């Protein structure tokens, strides 16, 4: 019975971590172009000349 007091909060907080991660990903626009993400993984990195960062 005592183990439940530990395990239920543990399960919930793990779930919350996942939820927060998803909401963060959503907010940062990672779900805006699902098709593109699926295809970009197949490209080699474009070799870019030296540039100043964004």
């Amino acid at each position, binding site marked *: 019975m005592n183990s439940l007091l530990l395990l239920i909060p543990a399960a919930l907080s793990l779930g919350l971590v996942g*939820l927060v991660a998803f909401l963060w990903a959503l907010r940062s626009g990672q779900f805006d172009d699902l098709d593109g993400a699926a295809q970009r993984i197949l490209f080699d990195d474009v070799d870019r000349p030296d540039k100043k960062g964004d």
Partner: protein
Amino acid sequence: MSIAAQALAASGAVAPAASACAHCGAVLAADRERFCCAGCAAAYGIVCDLGLDRFYRSRTAQDGALRPDPEAEAIDYAAYVTGDAAGHSTLHLMVEGINCAACVWLIESVLAREPDVIEGRINVATRRLVVRWEGPAWDARRHVRRLAALGFRLIPFDPRRLAAAEQGAEREILRSMAVAGFAAGNVMLLSVSVWAGHGEMGPATRDLMHWVSALIALPAIAYAGRPFFRSALEALRAGRTNMDVPISIGVLLAAGMSLFETVTSGATAYFDSAVTLLFFLLAGRYLDVRARGRARAAAENLLTLAAKSVTVLDPDGGMRAVPAQAVMAGATVLVAAGERFGVDGRIIDGRSDVDTSLVTGESVPAVAGPGSSVFAGMVNLTAPVRMTVTATGEGTLLAEIVRLMEAASRGRGRFVALADRVARAYAPAVHALAALTFLGWYGIIGASAHDALLTAIAVLIITCPCALGLAVPVVQVVASGRLLRNGILLKSATALERLAGVDTVVFDKTGTLTVGRPELCADQARSAEDQCLAASIAASSRHPLARALHRACPDTAPLAGVAEHPGRGLSLADGSDEIRLGSRAFCGIAAEAASDGGPELWLGRPGRPPVRFEFTDALRRDAAEIVQALRARGLDVRLLSGDRTPVVADIARQAGIDLWQGECTPARKAAELAALRAQGRHVFMVGDGLNDAPALDAADVSASPATAADVCQTTADIVFQGDRLAPVREVLDVARRSRRLVSQNLVLALSYNLAAVPLAILGYVTPLVAAVAMSSSSVIVIGNALRLARPGRGA
């Protein structure tokens, strides 16, 4: 789609199959070796010079779409560039011509090689490209030219014009779904332990589980249920009922009753059912919104095509680019050769040929001089003209057509989607059933009010239309995804449902059944030498007939010294004589020479008999086959055109259409469709011209090719890409198959309820039974819908 890293790593250009163009992949004519045109050869050179030639090995689609268009319209890109304080410029573009992932890679790589480009990124789903670079706005032209030279067509747009509100709705549903999913998983974890410990778990532990479940589920329901509660409230306020009403009532009652049970230390709590239900429904709602979002993005891309600027001449002689909608009546506008008229007006200076096909359906250009009226949508072909903008308000042709369209759509009436019709009958039935259950247990059998209420709520939970909420959207998402892959955009959510019931198909001629541009007819009597001479003269003109002539002999270089006489033809000084290429009168040919009234050019040389070049607006390659296929499906196929009767008769004969009419005005077309509908027919209209727009609106459902006038693409329910008519057949087949699947899904969902409701009424539905029944019915409905995605079925 698979790009092996191995293949990518290999270097050196490899020529593709000998019969296809090395750049665009189009089938080569017998006399060509590697490239179909000079543009493709240049593009291939650019790609190889940049070391990006692996593009040609990794791409998966080659259909000739990537052929650079030397006549691409010049747009003032700088007007669409936004700058920031750091000296960076940003341009948003819509890209046409992306076939596969390799195209995305190529565009991004080409931009990355430009030293000043900071970011060049494509959103594959919406086909939109964002380019950011260091430097002034006019660098835009250089970047755009680079991509245009590779065969991609780029159209600038203003992102602020695109609605952001709908995107917000999509995100809200996704957030709600995440919360509901989190809650469903955790509550289910606790519920399973309650079910598993049935009989052994002490009441204190069970109550703890229920309390924890309540703490997770109640906030989650309050948050994730908002889309449904809002829609249900709106419907109830308007005195209607929709699918969201039984959903909201079911979820709220289940949560309320479970809370009551928890507080009173009861044995049964339905928190898991309530949250899982919300999760599944949100999944369905998300699919629905996403499918609509794609359709909307497509429509927005089309709308941005209208975002063109016109060149206004100020009284002091200055020139400035002004968006077409901001031009005042009375202003003087300069229209360059090859440019589309952005506004209605009257020509004050200059003579030119005007392509009126989008407005009138006429395939031969008209001659325009001072005093001629021109309308937005026409193309100025041969010489620059100045024009005065006439009334911009209600007097314009466009406004007239818009009025006709409004009148036509009022006649269409409101189409009620199948799911809504089911919901209208379903919600009252379910609520009556729950009420009867309560009365039966309480009044007749004599159970306690508490037990009778529990049973009645169990009925509501089990009948909550989870599978019904998924039955239609899942099929629509699968269908629109399948169509999108074939270049068909569904703009309206109910288009497929309306399409499944059509029995009459009406085609327009120019640009719909035909390609919409003239092609040179073969003629044995003509020598190749004459044709080459004519083509080399024609090469310097933008007149569609001259372009067709040059297309027939693409290798001929333009001759120097060709003078253009707008409305008449071209001339070339040849010593003291003059070679003329142009109209019958221009070349001095007597009127009695044979003619069928079709478009023609004459080549006149001193001392030699004139040579005639005849042109025809050819049928789309598969037009006759598609007409045949539509008839085989029991559809009545008709042709309504604004062009001259003999031309229409000829095209109708070639396409195998018996019922046709020529010389139809826009109003006549719309009236014709209204008459067909008055006979009880369901009409599918396919058209592309401005003159078709009212008819497209008057039909039950309508389609336009992607080359159509902007206003048509905005009006049509379906827009298809490519130079074939096959999408018309494909979309009809998918629509009919979708309707079958939707009906099957509705029957499946309803039969599930029919099987489960008696159990619920008898009081046998425990929380476990409810959870299993709901989840499995949803999964079965989704599985059935996915059958549509299987290739080879329903096509």
